[in-house]
């Protein structure tokens, strides 16, 4: 099975081919195809309101035997957890700078969820962490901030979410996976995790969470993946 890095390499070579005229991506129609994300976003929100109830908790013991690790940096990103901080900012009443211990001391939940990669594979894991909604409450996020921007130390990888999906009870800042602390391969010290959107929306190696008035795109989203990307 190809891993994500192999996929990246392939995507790059396919992009080169596309430039040469093969594997047509739509050429002059590409802007239209991208603009069509908006009707699709409307359809997705019609099928499931972003803040609505959507459990699909997996059965105990259904954790997958393998769970791909993925990052865009040339080497696995690592940080000393003792100096690491998660900065909560943007339109908030009380900007926070949280250590891993601070996060671990906040109310925690564990959810066993199926991970859906946009490539088409799935894997199940249980994730332990603090709800983004809990952090928004602690920081006093301004209700006028309609979007949440997630930054990382993985080569500038980032994504942004609509507020309702980010504050959904199934969206966590995860610090544990399958009963253990998060490992560097899966985004340690802390990562976003949710089963409401495709995997590329769940930013690993978090450094910052900002409540913002506008959507700020994302690493893959700016290349062409769907921004709303609801499951």
């Amino acid at each position, binding site marked *: *099975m*190809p891993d994500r890095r192999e*996929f990246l390499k392939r*995507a790059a070579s*396919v*992009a080169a*081919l*596309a430039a040469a005229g*093969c*594997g*047509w*991506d*739509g050429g002059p129609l*590409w802007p*239209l*195809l*991208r603009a*069509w*994300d908006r*009707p*699709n976003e409307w359809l*997705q929100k019609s*099928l*499931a309101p972003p803040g609505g109830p*959507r459990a*699909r908790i997996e059965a105990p013991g259904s954790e*997958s*035997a*393998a*769970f*791909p690790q993925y990052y865009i940096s040339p080497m696995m990103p690592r940080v000393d957890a003792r100096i690491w901080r998660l900065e909560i900012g943007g339109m908030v009443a009380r900007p926070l700078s949280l250590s891993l211990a601070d996060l671990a001391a906040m109310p925690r939940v564990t959810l066993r969820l*199926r991970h*859906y*990669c*946009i*490539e*088409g*594979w*799935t*894997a*199940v894991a249980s994730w332990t962490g603090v709800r983004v909604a809990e952090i928004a409450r602690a920081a006093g996020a301004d209700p006028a901030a309609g979007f949440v921007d997630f930054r990382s130390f993985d080569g500038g990888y980032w994504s942004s979410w609509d507020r309702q999906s980010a504050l959904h009870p199934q969206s966590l800042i995860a610090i544990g996976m399958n009963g253990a602390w998060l490992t560097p391969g899966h985004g340690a010290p802390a990562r976003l995790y949710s*089963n*409401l959107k495709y995997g590329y929306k769940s930013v690993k190696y978090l450094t910052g969470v900002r409540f913002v008035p506008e959507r700020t795109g994302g690493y*893959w989203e700016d*290349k*062409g*993946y*769907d921004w709303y990307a*609801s*499951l």
Partner: protein
Amino acid sequence: MKRSVQSVDRPVRFEQPLLLRLTHWLNVVLLAGMIASGLQIYGAYPAFAERGADFCCWPLAGKRFPEAVRLGGWLAGGLKWHLFLMWGFVANGLVWLGWQIGSGEWRRRAFRPRDAREAWHMALWYARLRDRKPAYQVYNGLQKLAYTGTFALGVLAVATGFAIWKPVSLPLAEWMGGYVWARFWHFLIVWAFVGFTIGHLFMTLVVDREATRSMIVGAYRDPALEKPRAPAPSPPAGEGDARPA
């Protein structure tokens, strides 16, 4: 061949309405685009197994489809095309269905359980296991089965597609045995479409070429009407064309 036996009692005269012809040819384009972009999407993970597990039923895992039959250039391009053409595919199907119901044409085109016997007899006749061709008007049971079946296939394609597009928001994937299976059903439907198309092309390009013509210009000219077996009285001067109206 059909031409020689179609001498039968009831020569067929009818016309494919413009709306039906338009939706048919639009569907050719849309379905081709859906399949090509789907094969592009498939290439991002050309397998069905959940991570760390096996999948019983797809021996060609790991193999991608050639560039020439893919649309989109890469995964995001394939998805963009797929989710764009999807609207047209669904809308076209709804227009077609609305026309069938609104015009009442479904009565002589839709397959119903009582057509099963005739479909079977037609199949036997085509297989040369039956001497006498069943008598029918416009569409025989086998045609009704094929055309109604391919519409059902379209409905299943859309249902399985939504199942894997929204596996958390909608319960569809669960009903289909989970995401992995829903994705597999969606994939198999492609091959059912391809199988139908091969049979359809054979029937309309080899067996009954008038059907191809009628799907383009409308009027179906039954050979039995065009060339009566009995020596025909000489046509009146001028308009001698027996083209059915």
